[in-house]
């Protein structure tokens, strides 16, 4: 195995790990804000690591440039989308989940 192969496998495994973390977070966390938090951070990292692995596997060439561009835009837009969703939720007066008994829902 060449060092490139090892790097590709390591990046893929890390990407899959963070994607699974994001999926578990979206399923298990209690409300919109915490789910947006899981979906934005972990999912972005998972996607970016996976795309990094793909870019490495493609080697030098046009597909790599496209993958890297995709990676950059993913990195920019995914957190912005999460921010927009959380902002819209706040605008709609959706209360964040707390452990307080009084605000129990």
């Amino acid at each position, binding site marked *: 195995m060449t060092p490139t192969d090892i790097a590709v496998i390591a990046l893929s495994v890390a990407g899959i790990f963070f994607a699974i973390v994001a999926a578990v977070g979206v399923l298990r966390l209690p409300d919109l804000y915490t789910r947006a938090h899981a979906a934005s951070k972990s999912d972005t990292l998972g996607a970016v690591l996976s795309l990094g692995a793909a870019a490495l596997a493609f080697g030098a060439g046009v597909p790599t440039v496209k993958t890297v561009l995709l990676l950059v835009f993913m990195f*920019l837009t995914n957190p*912005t989308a999460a921010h927009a969703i959380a902002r819209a939720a706040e*605008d709609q007066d959706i209360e964040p989940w707390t452990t307080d008994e009084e605000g129990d829902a």
Partner: protein
Amino acid sequence: MSSNDRPPYVESTIIMTTVRFVAPFVLTLGLFIMFHGAESAGGGFQGGVVVGTVILMLAFAFGIEAVRAWLNPTAILGLIASGVLVFLAIGFGSVALDGAFLEYHAYEQLGIHHASGYGIELVELGIGAIVTGVIIGLFFVISAGFDPAEGEEEDLL
């Protein structure tokens, strides 16, 4: 808007900055997908949706009402109409040249090489214009909300 008691929309610096940066790239990608449709994956429908998304992004960033005021409804309708016209012109143009409907090879006799390539390209652009216009129109019609008490929508776009 259906709920007038809500405070007016306040722009977010984060969203505005991202949209300002990303919008030109998205527009380019949409056109790229449209032009790509003649030879490989892509086409007017997908590209049109991506181009329409640019206006939707602007609406998310700068407020729906502000973008609605900035947009010219006639321009959107003109976009849709011109798309239909381009499609029909290409389609019936070949009929006028003794071909079947959308038979691009009929244009070869005018001395145009790769007529089918250019023909498909123009048809894709026409479809793209229609899809873009419809996506933008639908978005603003839906965002205008529907008041059941009133019975009918106010002004579209």
